[in-house]
């Protein structure tokens, strides 16, 4: 091994080790000597003289870059905004001009490498296929079960992944090849990171490099593939096709099956022909409400309707209404809102042996959809209300309470969305204490019971069926109505 020097476009230099650590289809990857960054050289010797490619990279690193503050030439509104999105993307930081054309990115954070398992698992990147592929998952179950994490963390990583995609779309960018290969996930901690940013599609500047990945390409792209590239009917990867891939990924991580993969076998004499139809022009949702031809074979599969009041509607729009009509698909932002609202409905399973340990609470069934266990004691559900007009209080969501759950600012106040720069200081927490449910106030200055008593920070209010609590008297402060269900 020897140490070599790379010259960056900004004139600075960087030392890297000559031993190649990764060899992809497009790039060769090397560690910098401090191992904090990686240098990726494009294999295509023409890459550096391709004016459009260079321009695209300039844009991606600069004015479209959500991990760089605006005053430094990026797209982030502040240092905090930039830091927030830095955790969701592995964004390139520099362009390399010598000895070859390439880019520099940060090394993936440690939690995206397996900590346990045999040598073909331990130390490898947590590519999503490791958790979604049937064979890969079986291997993890056998050889590194701790790496599988729990269901709530898959839910969490769906939120981080959706945030990332929503941010790209907000800027008018599209990823164009969203797949488990390009989103590393950590089901132990519940986070994700979007990688391979350099092939992003910058509208008007650079068409997509790739068609996408098997199983994640939108039906309209697949079914118009036989047309010539410049045929006006030919569909290319775009934000609309990202929305398809995103919906597939969310469905897969939450239910561990592919939404278009059921018992139906499309016509065709080869795997390639059959697949082109299965994921293309003849794609059918395995949970289609009226067409049951593509149902999954597994008898105990959990239906998507177990995912609360919001997500099933979005799955229907993604895989029924919008499957072949891209404009009807839910946007990444709609997914994000629905996931975050549904997050507030999660409840731990009463069965300590439950394989998933968490599920979305259903007040009618009161039962875990994964293991069938019924809730043993009443579950407090807070109906959230906000004052739409003076004196007019409207319902806008619910919070299902469990022991040690934090009450956050966006619960206490309406018109506040948990975004990049939202105050994440807990406002209070819930506890099961001596036979009753309590809300312990930490930071709410005007928490008031229905009897009009102020509950100062450090004190608690009991959650009794039918009681109302005003979380804050300040503007947009919510009222919650307690129901024990």
């Amino acid at each position, binding site marked *: 091994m020897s140490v070599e020097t790379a010259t960056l476009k900004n004139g600075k230099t960087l030392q890297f080790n000559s031993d190649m650590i990764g060899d992809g289809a497009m790039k060769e990857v090397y560690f910098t000597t401090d191992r904090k960054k990686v240098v990726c050289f494009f294999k295509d010797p023409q890459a550096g003289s391709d004016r459009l490619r260079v321009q695209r990279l300039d844009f991606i690193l600069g004015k479209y870059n959500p991990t760089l503050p605006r005053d430094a030439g990026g797209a982030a509104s502040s240092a905090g905004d930039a830091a927030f999105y830095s955790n969701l993307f592995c964004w390139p930081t520099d362009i390399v001009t010598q000895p070859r054309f390439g880019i520099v990115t940060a090394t993936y954070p440690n939690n995206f490498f397996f900590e346990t398992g045999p040598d073909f698992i331990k130390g490898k990147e947590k*590519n999503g296929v490791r958790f979604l*592929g049937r064979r890969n998952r079986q291997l993890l179950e056998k050889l590194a079960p701790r790496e599988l994490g729990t269901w709530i963390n898959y839910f969490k990583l769906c939120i981080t992944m959706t945030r990332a995609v929503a941010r790209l779309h907000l800027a008018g960018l599209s990823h164009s090849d969203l797949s488990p290969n390009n989103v590393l996930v950590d089901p132990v901690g519940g986070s994700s990171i979007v990688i391979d940013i350099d092939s992003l599609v910058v509208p008007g500047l650079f068409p997509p490099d790739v068609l996408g990945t098997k199983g994640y390409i939108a039906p309209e792209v697949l079914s118009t593939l036989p047309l010539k590239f410049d045929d006006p009917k030919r569909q290319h990867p775009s934000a609309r096709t990202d929305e398809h891939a995103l919906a597939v990924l969310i469905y897969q991580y939450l239910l561990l099956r592919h939404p278009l993969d059921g018992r139906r076998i499309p016509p065709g004499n*080869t*795997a390639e022909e059959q697949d*082109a139809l299965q994921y293309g022009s003849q794609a059918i949702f395995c949970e289609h409400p009226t067409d049951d031809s593509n149902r999954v074979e597994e008898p105990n599969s959990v239906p998507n309707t177990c995912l609360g009041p919001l997500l099933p509607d979005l799955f229907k729009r993604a895989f029924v209404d919008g499957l072949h009509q891209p404009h009807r698909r839910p946007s990444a932002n709609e997914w994000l809102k629905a996931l975050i609202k549904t997050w507030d409905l999660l409840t731990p399973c009463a069965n300590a042996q439950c394989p998933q340990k968490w599920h979305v609470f259903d007040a009618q069934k009161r039962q875990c959809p994964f293991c069938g266990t019924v809730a043993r004691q009443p579950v407090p559900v807070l109906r959230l209300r906000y004052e739409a007009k003076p004196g007019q209080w409207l319902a806008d969501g619910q919070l299902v309470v469990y022991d040690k759950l934090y009450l956050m600012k966006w619960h206490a106040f309406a018109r506040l969305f948990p975004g990049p720069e939202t105050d994440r200081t807990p406002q209070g927490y819930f506890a099961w204490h001596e036979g009753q449910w309590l809300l312990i106030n930490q930071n709410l200055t005007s928490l008031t019971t229905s009897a009009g008593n102020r509950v100062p920070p450090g004190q608690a209010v009991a959650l009794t069926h039918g009681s109302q609590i005003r979380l804050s008297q300040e503007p947009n402060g919510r009222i919650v109505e307690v129901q024990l269900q």
Partner: protein
Amino acid sequence: MADMGRRLPVYLLLDCSGSMAGEPIEAIRQGVRALLSDLRGDPQALETAYLSVITFSSSAQQVVPLTELLSFQEPPLAAGGSTALGEALKVLEKCLDSEVRKSTPTQKGDWKPLIFLMTDGQPTDNWETQANILKQKRVGNIIACAAGPGADTNVLKKVTEIVVQITNLNPDDLKAFFKWVSSSVKSTSQSVGQTPAENTPVALPPPPPQITIVP
């Protein structure tokens, strides 16, 4: 994943004739080992790729049946004898018929197999009939590698459109070939099943500099 039932069958047809004795056969052993370890580390390959080895010298035999990567045991390879390419192709045809699942109205079959054929010399048996049969059956994507100065690219061109050449039988070049095989399997196991034309060759990653494509 996308379709959990389908497999990507990968066949290695390795010339073990006398001329491979010594360094070359050792390089091939190491190449197979490196290929296996590389593919096992790749989640997409792990999900779909199955591997088989057919060797040929004075005769041909399947030394490892189509096996998933984790159960695959490296075969003992020994060099000696002549170059029964025709028989090797016949064994391949048989294996493809019996091992690769066909897609039918009631079954989701396997992906089109990837077949890597490596030889360093002139075939010593009647190979042309068998080459024609394989070509007509379009059984899979055959990639032939003419290894070293003694290999005949004209022969290989009659077996398949895709022929590559490594000019020397040195260990580094052979290693580079197996590395390229590995990249090809990885990219095939994740790329789209494009269907436009039946006879379009599979898109493989560009080979390293030691390997040249024979036009």
